[in-house]
């Protein structure tokens, strides 16, 4: 094929000039002035440029940042709210318990004093047991039938106390009468009554104990976790031909760039670094076994890509920042004082809040061009995870935990090339600190 006409046409075009569009320089000048700082290359010794390429994405980033700040503020507010709501609750319970205690002890005191007045002999025993309250009389071998009739209900307990009072009074009379006969027997009878009383106290104490227990549990229901996790490893692959992280608009540039030269023997290396996630979460213990965890996570993803052929290549570096909200359910299957083991499952939704793609183009190992632009993904990144957790309680306040697990990231059909996309299923290890409130 004779290509002479092509050469001719090319050389004609080479020297051909068209008049530039009117007002081009003027609007160009405006942009140069408005982006003045971008053109200040006084410090360009390090050849990798820090050009913010697209002016239009700037406000978007700002918005994203604001969004990020908003999220953080919201999370902080939520955490604060939990604190605020939590403390008065406990106080109320404490108050209630104290009142309860007082009323019952008043009642008991009254009855005891009544006994006191009339019965001198067993007084020591009585006071001993009532004052100590929690102590169980040593000689309560005699268990009265009336004990069974003691209801757990407070009101009926009070009633019971009143009836007991009367019975004590009556027994007093009896005592008076029979004292000379057999003081020991009477003593026993009184003791019997006292034992009943004691039973009531004990019952009350149990009530107290159990409610205190509830109170304790309530106290530790909220826990906050600070965690860090990453996947078991990064991810890298090599494939032939050209690859890119870039969104569509830059793809063209890269293709155009590489296509200047032969496309043969080209290959692409992709390396995703281990994603790193930090979390600040709150754990709510529903009961001894079940708990819910939610909060805020921050993830950082970094990837590098290098497409290379014989004498030229380009490097892409992509850095992405995510904020996420997790929700996990955990089930404790074994625990002792120090160690707690549980399984956990849940989901995490993450939003890409910022990102940067830096591309360097090299020809003959010389940096030819460098671009840098913001990249973000609108799509939410959903994932599910499951883990086995082991927590060691350093003190009542602090526990450290490790949660090895698996995580699966759903494809969110974002244009961004991430480890989430290239390897959706991952092992990960979460390490963290768990703080118990109000303990």
């Amino acid at each position: 094929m004779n290509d002479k006409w092509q050469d001719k046409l090319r050389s004609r075009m080479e020297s051909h000039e068209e008049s530039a569009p009117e007002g081009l320089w003027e609007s160009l000048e405006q942009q140069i002035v408005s982006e003045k700082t971008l053109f200040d290359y006084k410090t360009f010794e390090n050849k990798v440029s820090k050009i913010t390429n697209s002016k239009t994405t700037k406000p978007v980033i700002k918005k994203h940042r604001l969004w990020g700040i908003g999220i953080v503020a919201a999370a902080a507010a939520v955490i604060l709210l939990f604190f605020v709501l939590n403390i008065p609750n406990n106080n109320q319970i404490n108050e209630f318990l104290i009142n309860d205690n007082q009323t019952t002890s008043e009642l008991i005191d009254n009855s005891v004093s009544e006994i006191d007045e009339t019965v001198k002999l067993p007084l020591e025993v009585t006071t001993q047991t009532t004052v100590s309250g929690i102590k169980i009389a040593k000689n309560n071998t005699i268990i009265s039938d009336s004990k069974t009739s003691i209801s757990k209900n407070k009101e009926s307990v009070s009633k019971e106390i009143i009836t007991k009072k009367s019975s004590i009074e009556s027994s007093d009379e009896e005592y008076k009468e029979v004292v000379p006969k057999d003081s020991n027997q009477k003593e026993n009878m009184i003791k019997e009554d006292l034992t009943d009383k004691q039973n009531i106290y004990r019952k009350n104490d149990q009530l107290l104990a159990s409610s205190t227990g509830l109170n304790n549990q309530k106290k530790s229901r909220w826990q906050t976790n600070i965690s860090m996790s990453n996947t078991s490893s990064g991810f890298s692959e090599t494939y032939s031909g050209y690859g890119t992280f870039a969104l569509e608009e830059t793809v063209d540039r890269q293709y155009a760039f590489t296509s200047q030269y032969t496309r043969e023997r080209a290959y692409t290396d992709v390396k995703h670094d281990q994603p790193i996630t930090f979390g600040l979460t709150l754990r709510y213990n529903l009961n001894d076994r079940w708990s819910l965890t939610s909060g805020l996570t921050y993830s950082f993803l970094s990837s590098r890509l290098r497409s290379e052929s014989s004498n030229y290549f380009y490097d892409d570096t992509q850095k992405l920042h995510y904020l996420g909200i997790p929700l996990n359910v955990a089930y404790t299957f074994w625990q002792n004082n120090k160690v707690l083991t549980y399984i956990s499952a849940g989901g995490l939704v993450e939003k890409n809040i910022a990102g940067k793609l830096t591309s360097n183009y090299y020809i003959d190992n010389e940096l030819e061009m460098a671009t840098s632009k913001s990249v973000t993904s609108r799509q939410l990144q959903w994932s599910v995870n499951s883990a086995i957790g082991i927590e060691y309680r350093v003190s009542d306040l602090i526990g450290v935990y490790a949660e090895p697990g698996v995580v699966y990231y759903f494809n969110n059909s974002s244009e961004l090339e991430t480890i989430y996309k290239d390897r959706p299923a991952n092992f990960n290890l979460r390490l963290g600190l768990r703080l118990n409130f109000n303990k």
Partner: protein
Amino acid sequence: MLRDESRERELLQQIVGGDKNAMKTFYDIYSGYLTGVCSRYVSNKEDIKDILQESFLNIFKSIHNFKYRGIGSLKAWSARIVVNESLKHIKENEKMQLTSLPDWDLPDHNEILDSDLEDIPTSEILKMISSLPTGYRTVFNLFVFEGKSHKEIASILDIAENSSASQLHRAKSLLVKEIELYRINKNKNER
């Protein structure tokens, strides 16, 4: 004209240093040529202006990474950025019409193209090229002016290799038709 290599180097340094006057000088020297390059790919005047504006900004921003390799290297490098911006624009805004217009039974178009086109002003040829359907035009430009192979064009435009060849064939046929039409018109006007 800045034909002097050292002067061009100096100009480069000034642009890198953020000198607006140097940018204006660069603009004055190359805007005509780059407008021509852009006009081969895109015909709409407004679009051309947008593309060129984006291209110049791009050039000024990345010029510090440009490796000067003598006279002509800056021009070629700048043109490459304009071509890339133009391709980007085409991909974003125009459908790559790979429509097959009917195959005209044209004489071997190379003969006509090989005949001296001296009678046709370059701007007219440019107009003819830019009036070709997008697919034809893009392939023609990449093949003839950027010296790309069909294989390369195929991967740039994400089309099959043989369809790049057929697009070029049709582009040439259309161009020949345009040239003949131009000559007929010209003769008519002269008469």
